[in-house]
């Protein structure tokens, strides 16, 4: 029995000695937050993480579904039904994504800016400034996106925007109230100034049309000024960009959406194989093209959203290059009698072709954020605002000439209202499926006497044809998950 005692002793010793190895376990492959940023190169890695949050597919998808850009397609299995019927709730998926993607980017930018202060700039001053400057630019852009979608009135500095955040969160459970547009504009302006002073680096990995450079900053300044109604400034910024970014011709325009031509691209978000968005995303945060089709932009590609008849009808039969770019004409079934065909959902199939795919991946394309055409249209707005109706008409003609590939008649605007109406009509076609229509109707709809304009046939299947430009749904609700946790965040009116 001696042996048994020995065995027992071994057992006891083992249990007591080895207990720590059971309860002190460091899982492998963990990078503690304290060790994340140790060099300027780490800042650059983090910058890629901040850019990765930027995604406008939710803005694009929401705009496309809620306005007159698209209508339920043949293979719709309930997608966008709420949004199409103007049923916008605080738990809407698009709303949630717009909020969280942008705050993800802001959070990451703030971490980079804060971490940079702990690092030695002298290690690589060129890269340091270039990276930190872009972090400021990202923060400015995302704050502006938040303001755009969640503020009731861009021209009112006292209206509420979103949560203004300029440093990493120290208390994850905190409640923070919304700031005003005025505070947002001031911070964005300041961030853009800082960004402009820093972004001059030579790092090829973080430069080019898919990274935020000086022209991005100017373009954002132009858009923000236009939204605020500060048209003199807007016109100046837009004009300076147009000097370097001409309006594309028909061929350039067409291949721009194959990600093969960058003539008029000031900034776009790159989408590549293996990135976060390399997946189907029928309600955003995936391939942009999968906002309309399940598989690809062909007849057999499962079109669940199609171009709306009202928008299609404007271009149908013209030589406007925007028609074949908006609609895959070869794969579509166009039923001229759709208005009287009860089975038009199956017989009249208009396939969206603006995001055909790239790198062999159907539906995956870069997201155009700023193009020179928008700058030209900002100039037209500025002219209309200054009551220079002929100048405004001239800018519109310049764009139409390029799109039609032949000189077009000069529009004749008899009033400011007509001019803004004409500008809105042009923006509707030019910026189709790029996430502008809803914002444009919100800010200019009344000035141009335009509203959501759906085809009568489509209206018959929807809760409503249009929505007043002053309707509360032209401001998004603060997402439920935000108001649940952040008791200080005031909900927008109507929700």
């Amino acid at each position: 029995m001696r042996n048994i005692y020995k065995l027992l002793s071994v057992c006891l010793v083992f249990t007591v000695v080895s207990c720590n190895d059971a309860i002190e376990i460091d899982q492998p492959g963990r990078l503690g937050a304290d060790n994340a940023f140790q060099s300027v190169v780490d800042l650059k890695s983090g910058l890629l993480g901040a850019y990765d949050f930027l995604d406008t597919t939710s803005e694009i998808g929401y705009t496309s579904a809620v306005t007159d850009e698209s209508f339920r397609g043949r293979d719709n299995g309930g997608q966008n039904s709420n949004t199409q019927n103007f049923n916008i709730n605080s738990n809407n998926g698009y709303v949630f994504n717009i909020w969280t993607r942008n705050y993800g980017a802001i959070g990451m930018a703030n971490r980079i800016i804060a971490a940079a202060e702990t690092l030695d700039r002298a290690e690589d001053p060129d890269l340091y400034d270039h990276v930190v400057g872009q972090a400021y630019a990202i923060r400015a852009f995302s704050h502006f996106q938040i303001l755009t979608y969640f503020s009731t009135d861009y021209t009112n500095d006292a209206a509420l925007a979103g949560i203004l955040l300029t440093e990493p969160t120290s208390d994850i459970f905190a409640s923070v109230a919304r700031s005003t547009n005025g505070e947002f504009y001031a911070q964005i302006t300041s961030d853009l100034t800082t960004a402009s002073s820093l972004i001059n680096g030579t790092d090829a990995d973080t430069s080019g049309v898919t990274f935020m450079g000086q022209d991005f900053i100017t373009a954002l300044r132009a858009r923000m000024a236009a939204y605020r109604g500060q048209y003199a400034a807007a016109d100046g910024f837009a004009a300076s960009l147009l000097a370097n970014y001409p309006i594309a011709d028909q061929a350039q325009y067409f291949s721009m959406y194959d990600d093969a031509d960058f003539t008029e691209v000031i900034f776009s978000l790159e989408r590549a194989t293996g990135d976060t968005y390399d997946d189907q995303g029928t309600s955003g945060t995936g391939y942009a093209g999968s906002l309309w089709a399940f598989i690809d932009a062909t007849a057999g590609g499962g079109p669940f959203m199609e171009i709306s008849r009202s928008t299609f009808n404007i271009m149908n039969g013209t030589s406007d290059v925007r028609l074949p770019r908006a609609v895959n004409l070869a794969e579509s079934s166009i039923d001229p009698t759709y208005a009287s065909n009860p089975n038009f959902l199956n017989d009249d199939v208009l396939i969206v072709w603006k995001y055909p795919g790239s790198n062999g991946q159907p539906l995956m394309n870069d997201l155009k954020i700023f193009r020179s055409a928008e700058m030209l249209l900002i100039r037209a707005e500025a002219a209309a605002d200054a009551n220079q109706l002929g100048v405004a008409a001239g800018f519109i003609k310049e764009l139409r000439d390029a799109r039609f590939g032949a000189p077009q008649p000069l529009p004749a605007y008899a009033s400011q209202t007509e001019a803004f109406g004409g500008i809105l009509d042009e923006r509707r076609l030019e910026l189709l499926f790029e996430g502008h229509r809803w914002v444009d109707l919100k800010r200019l709809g009344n000035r141009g006497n335009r509203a959501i304009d759906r085809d009568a046939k489509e209206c018959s299947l929807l809760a409503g044809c249009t929505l007043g430009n002053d309707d509360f749904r032209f401001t998004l609700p603060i997402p439920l998950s935000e108001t649940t946790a952040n008791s200080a965040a005031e909900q927008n009116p109507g929700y």
Partner: protein
Amino acid sequence: MKVKNYVLVMVLFLLNTATMLAQEKTITGTVTSVVDALPLPGVSVIVKGTTRGAQTDFDGNYSIKASANETLVFSYVGNKTVEELVGNRSTINVALQEDVASLEEVVIEAYRTSTAEKSNIASTTITAKTVEARPNASFAQTLQGQVAGLNITTGNGQPGGDSQINLRGVSSLSGNTEPLFIIDGVPVDEDNFRSLNPNDIESLSVLKDAGATAIYGNRGANGVVLIKTKRGSYNSGLKINYIGTSSFSVLQNHDYNLMNSREELQLEKDFGSGFGATLSDAELAIRAQQTNTDWLDVFFGTGLTQSHTLNLSSGGENINSFTSFGYTDQEGILKKASTLKRFNFRSNINGKSSNDKFNYGTSFTFNYSESNEPNSIDGAAGTVNRNFVLGANQSLPYISPASYIPGEGANIPVVFANTPLFLLDRRDTYTRREDEIKIIANVNASYKITDNLTFRTSFGGDFTDEQLLRVEAPNSFNANLFALTGDNTPGFSDQDSRRSVALNFNNSLTWSKVFADKHSLEVSLFTEYFKAHRRSFGFRQLGFDPATFSPGDGAAFVDDNANDDFYVDTGRASVRDAGLFSYFGYVDYDYDSKYGFSATVRRDASYRFSASNRWGTFWSVAGRWNISNEAFMEDSIFDQLKLRASYGTTGNQRIIDVVGQFAYFAGPDLTENFFNTGAQYGGVNGLSVGQIGNNDLKWETIIQGNIGLDFALLSNRLRGSFDVYQRNTEDLFVSTPIAPSLNGGVTGINANVGELQNSGFDVELHYDLFKSKEEGGLNVTLNVVGNYNKQEIVSLGAGGDQPLTRRVGGVIGELFVAPYMGVNPANGNLLFLDIDGNLTEDITTNDQRATGKNIFPDYQGSFGLDADYKNFFFTAQFNYTIGVYRSDFDLQGYLDPSAIGQFRHSRDILRAWTQPGDITDIPSLNATNTSDEFLSDRNIRNSDYLRLRFIQFGYNVPKKVLDKIGFTSFRAFVSGENIVTWSKWRGFDAEALNPSQNRYPTPKTYSVGIEFGF
């Protein structure tokens, strides 16, 4: 059998030389129970006045040497002792009668056993008889309705599929809520029983109250299920037992009133959408005549199952063994896509020293299973190209299966109406197979250091190796659908190897002594060490050459090349470790079998909280009063009456509830902040925020009080127990909302806030309606098992109510909806009640309100009867649940006007509103506010049910016949599972813990089986 007897004779010969001279003979026989005529194993057979003895084996047989003038004494716990003079007999068969006075049922408790009389805890034990020969691949399904308070829900028809198991309510909001399962001393993964053979189980004990579970500390929060597998017995000959069953399973019925081909086409024509809308009346009639497919019959069918288990047991003086082989081949009701094949081997050995001081035992089981388990069903309700059940439920009847040409999947036109064809193709071309090796092994030993002091040690492991293969063939619809432009050899192969081993090492010292005959005291001290390791790796290969393609084989793999990135493969791997360390002890005191008291305390450390609150202490006290042992009860009708009470704490360190196996590795270091590396913007490697840590995390603590009554009365004809309990979960893990703006888009973090209460009662009753004194008479026992449980969220911490998610005073998973009030006769739109109680057509999230309803039952349990007469036996068990509300999205789909032309409908839709003044329950097909229905209770249905869960009828071949053919037992039976369900629920399966939408229902199963031993 000759050899066996010879060996036994030799053993006895050597041991009993002296009596050999007195002309001993060998007496054999069988000991049975008067109650049910079943053999009694473990009956002690002693030659009166000597130390010679034997035990009956598993089949009640014994063999002993005795001479004619000696007397054999048969004794067995809970039965009257019988003495038989040997005389000139060589076979003595004895039927033992239950001894009411000394009913001493063995109660298995944590780390020890007790008797029914001396146990202080609330527990229920189920025996092999209940679990054996049932056609459920996972024993958890069989347990359903057998134990009061144990709510088992299987929402999945996959053979061996995982069941959700909750004891006395759901005790956590975001943590693990399933009991700890311990098989032969080894804690095992509670989500994976598919590889284990239920026929090996000897007993299953469910420990419920704190008195029973506190000693499991931070693993005992949700109760403990102790499973013991069968073992041999000492001094018994070789016994062979066989159990075989054949079963067939079919889909349960639905009540959706679904359209046929003609009706569906007519609906499309009338509505003006879909194929029907393009047909003339004559064309429509022809099509309807040509094709009328019920896709339920195409995708679902009869699943055949065969199962065989062969046991061998034998025992010598100091060693015994039990060996079992099992083979099961089961088909799920989803044709061609859902199977389980498994092979089981078990070897359990006991040994002891001849002075009985040293005992040891091993339990070892090796299991191999192959499952074809279709995925994209649970949680992927609407994927038309992947979910077979969607194909069965929703496909249009005018589409013919003949339209699918095998091998031509890539050419199926992509419209929803072709959904069944996509899925037929997937069934032919997609492989999803899980091969699993599961080993559970344990070695334990005990040594009696002195008469009062015993040392025990137990070391065991649960090993799982799973190989997962998922392959999409190059010519399949799906591979081509999502192929990159220009990729002519698409398809993927995912192969994953996942391996886990969990080791448990327990040492204890027990001191026990009886003082002055009446005071018994037992004290035990333990240490326990638990460590688990999980390793996994895998890859995704893209591209196959169809010429050499075979799922799982690499010959067809197409490599990456310089021209494109079509075939860039990806690899993956993960390493995770888990560990716990504890020391604990108990004290148990009994006074004269009248009063008892026990206490436990356990100190526990978990690896999960190494950076925050590593150690926790859990404790319990329990006491009893055996009222029936008091003198004043002597003439009462009670044979047994015992009052129990316990109070104590347990913990839950499994803070993240991951459904499925390997769950105990989830959330290993939630206390820490991490960054992730990996593909960022443009697919370039970079850095991003990972986990936001909560450095204040700790276990949930469950404080449970229990008062129970165990009773037996009317000469033991009415037996049962009644328990009331209250379980409060403090430091409740709740996914606490955090502002996504401040936290980079993250909306919640797990934190210990809030408190949850479950309270209710368990009741278990057995009544012998007929109890025959003679063998072969009529015996009928009625059984009732029930539980009532009330949930209430007591607190949600400083944050308070979480809109549309949970509220203080509410229940878990509460439904927040606006009442649906029917159809507006004026315009056919849906009507709802807004938050102010006004009728409206337009509701928002602000109108959604708490209902107090959820998917967990208030009442659940079973009732039934066991009967036998002559050699026939009969069992029936009805299960019920009350208070279950569940969304029926299948019905929603059948009534969805926007799916006309795409999917199948219910005839109910023909009642739709068409003109002003129509009073109907179905809105206009053009109603403009249908999307509001999801904010309302329109699709929420009561899913209470009463189900004939199990019925069995069988025949035991009489002893006389058996003796002639050389068998010790032989029975044959037919049985059925889920035979009839009474419910307002219209779907296939009223039972599930999820909304129903194209899920895999559990089947109805009929079986025939035989069991024999020799």
